[in-house]
């Protein structure tokens, strides 16, 4: 099964479970959790079901397209359901079956893996799912966001699409994945991968990036102070990506790191407050 077919199947599968299927959020971000479709939606009481592909940029993981397993940008398939259905685990396994996997021939293990995202004040308890030893999914029950305990909680399922595709297609290099019948992953992504790495590791202007961080932060704060949630939150995401670019250059000292993360966390809390305030004002729409 080729890469795009996998995405279609997952979308179809989760559509049938009642999820809204959204296009990827158009901002450079490091993980599906940061998308407003996740972070801003797990807050509050309103129920929510969504599935989307999230291109995730982690500059420090880039290898100029030379490493068969590491990428500057990979693709996550993200599912958020609030509150979690009773049979969510089986539902997830069914999604693997929908990808053509015969589970009786493989081994699926759920290994404890809890995560924490300092920038979002978020915390989850759950597992990494291993398919014949390969980590293919993070399966998590969100416990906290913006430092607050969530009630109800949401379940977050994050598939690593490249890993899954390599497994299903039996490839040893991510660039050999068949995207469709005529293109490989490498055909479509390798040059971009290389250029992004050249930028992140060699060409980025560190001084300018620090300035940009300050500008984005100020803009985010100004907008959030005016209750303009989405534009304000988008500038927070720009801060986060700028931070990741700086991190890839190894120029963030430890104290600076703590400081920058605290500044972003503050913005995330401002955004969370707006979400909760407006939910209170509008009441629950069930």
């Amino acid at each position: 099964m080729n890469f795009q077919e996998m995405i279609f199947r997952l979308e179809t599968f989760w559509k049938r479970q009642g999820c809204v299927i959204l296009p990827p959020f158009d901002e450079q971000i490091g993980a599906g959790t940061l998308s407003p479709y996740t972070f801003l939606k797990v807050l509050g009481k309103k129920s929510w079901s969504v599935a989307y592909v999230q291109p995730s940029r982690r500059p420090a993981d880039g290898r100029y397209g030379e490493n068969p397993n590491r990428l500057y940008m990979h693709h996550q398939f993200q599912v958020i359901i609030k509150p979690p259905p009773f049979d969510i685990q089986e539902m997830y396994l069914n999604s693997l079956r929908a990808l053509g996997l015969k589970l009786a021939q493989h081994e699926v293990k759920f290994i404890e893996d809890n995560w924490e995202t300092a920038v979002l004040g978020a915390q989850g308890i759950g597992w990494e799912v291993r398919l014949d030893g390969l980590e293919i999914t993070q399966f998590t029950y969100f416990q906290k966001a913006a430092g607050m305990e969530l009630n109800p909680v949401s379940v977050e399922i994050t598939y690593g699409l490249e890993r899954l595709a390599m497994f299903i297609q039996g490839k040893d290099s991510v660039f050999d994945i068949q995207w469709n019948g005529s293109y490989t992953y490498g055909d479509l992504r390798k040059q971009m991968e290389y250029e992004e790495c050249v930028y992140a590791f060699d060409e980025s202007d560190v001084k300018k990036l620090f300035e940009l961080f300050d500008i984005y932060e100020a803009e985010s704060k100004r907008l959030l102070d005016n209750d303009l949630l989405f534009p304000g939150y988008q500038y927070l995401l720009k801060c986060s990506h700028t931070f990741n670019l700086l991190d890839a250059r190894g120029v963030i000292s430890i104290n600076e790191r703590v400081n920058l993360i605290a500044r972003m966390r503050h913005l995330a809390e401002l955004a969370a407050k707006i979400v909760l305030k407006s939910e209170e004002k509008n009441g629950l729409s069930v």
Partner: protein
Amino acid sequence: MDYLFEIFTEEIPATLLNKAVQNLKTIAERKIQDFNINFKRIEAFGTPRRLTLFIWGLEDKEWDIEKEVKGPPVSIAFDKDGNPTKILGKFLSSNNLTEKDIFKKDTAKGTYVFASKRIKGRTAEEVVREVSLFLLQHLSFPNPMYWDNPGVKFIRPIRGMIALLGNNVVKFSYAGIETGRTTYGLRIDKPREIEVGSPEDYLKKIREHYVILSFNERRKMVERNMKIEASKVNGHPSSTLSHLEEVVNLTEYPTPFLARIDKESLNIPDCITESIIEGHLKSIVVRNDEGKLLPYFIGVRNGLSDFVEIVRAGYEKVVKARVLDGKFFFEEDKKIKLDDFVKKLKGVVFIKGLGTLYDKTLRLVELSEVVSSNLFLSSEEYENLKRAAFLSKAGLVSNVVKEFPNLQGKMGSIYAEIQGENKVVSTAIYEQYLPLPASNLLPKTKVGTLISLIDKIDTLVGALGIGVKVSGSKDPFGLRRVGNGIVQILFSMGVASFPLSKFISSSIEIYKKQGFKINLVPEDVELFLKDRAKSLLRVLSFRYDIINAVVSLPIDFMPTYPQRAKVIEKHLSEDTLLYIVLSNKRVKNILAKHQGKKSTVDPSLFFERDEEALYNAVETTRDKVFEKLKEMDYEEVMNLFYTLYPVISQFFDNVLVMDKKDEIRSNRFALLSELKSLFDAFADFSEIALEKK
């Protein structure tokens, strides 16, 4: 009747499962004591997806109990004609009794009406329901979670419950889940419901569906089969108990299989391969007869052997990719000079408020100097210690250690060797982290021992200095372990003394010189370490009083605590110790009466023959005692004390310490003080509790 209670969950963390099962059993056993019911035994089991409790041989119901209830005084219960009053009537009706049930009994406050009341026992069903609900509410876990039921936390989401008493379902609900008789077996493909008839039937059916309930049975399956698998390549599986526990508890039905590691991967240090196999892949490494790593490992499938070749291929591929990663990082690291790694430590915080790891490095280098001059190290040893201190933390910023944090010491040591540092330095870099948690492996080399000690002293001084508190389960920087490490090393040194107090005070000074605000005195650190020493001596099963007797010695004598304790213990039942303790007690008691300044003994003020005799005995014994202490011949020290006993007795029999003249009295106190300090040089004998004969 038998009772079965299964809590069916999503996957319970493998490292927490055994503890959870143990708690299930103890809490159930404790709770059932609240009921008047007999049972044969309680058993508990756990797999990744279930916690299961059995109560075997439970009686049908609680036994009835007779309870005496006190009513009103006879004078109020009956009128003067002997007829029952309304008050008695009320007592009877509220207790559901008739007049036939009552009797009169004298009490200290007069004669009262009493009745014997029968309280009917509850049924077994009521009992197990209450026990089960109590378990659900009181099983506690580190880091429990919410899933969809606000207010209910458990280790992982509960997805089903079986409660069967004999053949019948005991109805109750928790976290929105109703009890029933349905469960699921091993996850193979589509889940298939299993209907359970009775507790016995559960045992049979669950096994038919490939669930091995007992951890011990699963462990044996793994142990037996991994040996067979490894023997195919003339190897032996090699794993620690705690790692094996995790591997086993990731399975409901374990099937070990042999898998291959790509040959070329052996160009990376073994410790990286081990970390990938054990830490990441939860599998087991294979060694040959000489203990060398073979290019194979044992994976443990959660499932049967059907299609195991597919699973094996998957595991092998994961190892290959991770090894490739490890190799990349290793090659990158090799390009970087260790001295440059040290510079990078400027960007890594040690502990908030105590600067960076670079600051720590500089402190360790300075402490090496103190150590060197106090222990009279040769200039070669000094140079090695200083170099090892300077490089000790370099490995922490290497790429491999960032990827595999548990390799901190090993990789630092490997890079040092590759870059031409001598063997003493590279070994010391590894040994600084010894002893590892739950291990008795201590540094073997002198420089390694010293670097391990000063590294730990620096951590302890700094953390206590910024007010880190250790209490109960709170120990954020693992200071107990750090302290235990210091004590373990000292206990194994085999020296008569070690200038630990000097190193502690130097460490404090060095922090202050660097400009850190740390607020403590050496005694704070010493007290902490003495506490750790006490706890380790308890592990060695010494008696409390003996421990207190030796730990009262200055901390520099810590290396000798265990030997001294052993000698005291040996003499416990002998007169030797009895006399020493008694002498010490008499001296201590009389010294307690002394007020005023201490003076030195002046022989010209002696008037009695026996005080002169004691003086001479103390004088001639003292040098011998200290010589023997230095030689660590504690047996002989005890003998020397013993020989003093007659002289001391005669002194107390014939000399009145409390003389009227001040100078004579003071002089006698001074003499006794000298004697006391002689005893104290070995241990505080007043701590020893003697059994009364």
